[in-house]
């Protein structure tokens, strides 16, 4: 039973804990790059009496949409603790995967929900939406001002000027490796990207690389935590702003992640200390974002076709690509 195996892991990691019990282990739907499990634990500790806490466990899947790195995500969460970037506190990691068959880490469970469509369109969130939009812009500025030297294993280009070319090379190589059929629209988009490289950023920034509505927790008080850092790297901060603006993340709402207008988000981001947003660079990163998103699904398609995973989400996401191709053809026409 997973409960007992998690309890055994906690006993090992919290030597002072006695009578450790784990309950309510449940896999959270979504999260196609890493398995996400929720559970509650109780134990007794001398001096503290009975302790009851709620946790999230992130485990490597057998195969995923991304070739991502558990260590990096743990290192990042650890590094940003206390930086003012809202994020859950990470607690323990099993790098070898001995306790639960595959590598995983455990972090605290924060309050809130992630559902983007509800936040972007539900009347119940109409009042909190502007506040979330502002917090989202401010948190992004904080992420981009974070000292990347504190995360040594972060992938980084040779120089700020190489940021865009570095990302293009990374995703083109992933496409070549994983595509099961020719991708003419993506080839056209890669040609466009190569001809429209943005001006280099002033310096390399921490790029979240999946900064979308749906990847942060929110409740009536606003954003409670930024999640899903598995694609984070050092690079051009405008990459994240471009990702925010993608049509895929509007959820039927406004242009900037379903929360506010494009201009409003950029104004709040810049006022919070974010990088100056060059509009041509923004378009470059928006095109790039659509290309990258389509390639992520190409990787998922290979995993499902080759039987590496039974996760049906990966089969379904393949059918999102025609919509991304339409968006790309519109952007690069």
């Amino acid at each position, binding site marked *: 039973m997973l409960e007992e195996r998690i309890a055994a892991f906690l006993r090992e990691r919290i030597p002072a804990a006695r009578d450790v019990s784990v309950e309510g282990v*449940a*896999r*959270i*739907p*979504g999260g196609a790059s890493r398995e996400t499990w929720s559970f509650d634990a109780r134990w007794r500790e001398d001096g503290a009496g009975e302790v009851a806490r709620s946790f999230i466990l992130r485990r490597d899947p057998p195969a995923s949409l991304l070739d991502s790195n558990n260590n990096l995500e743990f290192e990042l969460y650890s590094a940003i603790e206390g930086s003012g970037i809202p994020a859950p506190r990470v607690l323990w990691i099993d790098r070898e995967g001995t306790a639960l068959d595959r590598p995983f880490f455990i972090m605290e469970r924060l309050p809130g929900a992630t559902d983007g469509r509800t936040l972007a369109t539900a009347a119940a969130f109409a009042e909190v939406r502007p506040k979330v939009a502002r917090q989202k812009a401010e948190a992004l500025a904080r992420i981009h001002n974070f000292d990347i030297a504190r995360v040594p294993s972060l992938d980084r280009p040779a120089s700020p000027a190489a940021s865009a070319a570095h990302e293009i090379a990374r995703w083109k190589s992933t496409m070549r490796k994983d595509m099961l*059929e*020719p*991708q*003419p*629209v*993506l*080839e*056209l988009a*890669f*040609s*466009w990207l190569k*001809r429209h490289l943005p001006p280099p950023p002033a310096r390399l920034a921490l790029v979240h690389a999946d900064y979308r509505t749906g990847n942060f927790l929110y409740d009536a008080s606003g954003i409670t935590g930024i999640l899903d850092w598995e694609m984070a790297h050092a690079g051009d901060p405008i990459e994240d702003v471009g990702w925010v603006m993608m049509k895929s993340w509007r959820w039927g709402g406004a242009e900037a992640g379903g929360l506010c207008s494009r201009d409003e988000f950029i104004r709040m981001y810049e006022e919070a200390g974010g990088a100056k947003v060059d509009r041509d660079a923004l378009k470059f990163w928006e095109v790039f974002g659509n290309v990258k998103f389509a390639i992520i699904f190409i990787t998922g398609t290979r995993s499902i076709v080759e039987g590496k995973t039974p*996760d*049906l*989400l990966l*089969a*379904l996401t393949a*059918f*999102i690509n*025609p*919509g991304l*191709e*339409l968006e790309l*053809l519109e952007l*690069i*026409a």
Partner: protein
Amino acid sequence: MRPYPEEILRALAAGVGAHFAPELRSDYARAQFAFAMMLFTIAQQGADTAVPDLIEENRALRALLAEAREGLAQVDRDDARAGIGVVDALPAAETSLKLTDLRRENDALRDAVGKLAGVIEPAADDASLAPLRGVRERLYAHLRADAQRRVVPILSA
């Protein structure tokens, strides 16, 4: 013979829904079940017209590539000459009506379009590639129509 494959898929979806759905206990299992139901629907779409659709798609792509070749012949650049080689190397039009054969032909044609991306995409604003502007426009329109045909409405709602 009845049931036809599409009828089997419909029966499978209905049977799985009736027998398994009530037994699902977790949100995760229910989400996977919903994905399965959507995939049953997607698998049935376009099955009946797959062969004529591919024949038409391949005919249209072949015509666009032939037009691209004419444009490339008017461009004095190495990449244009390489592009002519790509078009000339295409396999002959498929005469088989088997899906696997038509898909293989489609892959070869789409691969050729991809290989020409570096000369077709910049044609709109590169004067040296001006002879390719017309075919660029028609190719983009074709790719848009093709993507639109493959859009799954339940995923773009």
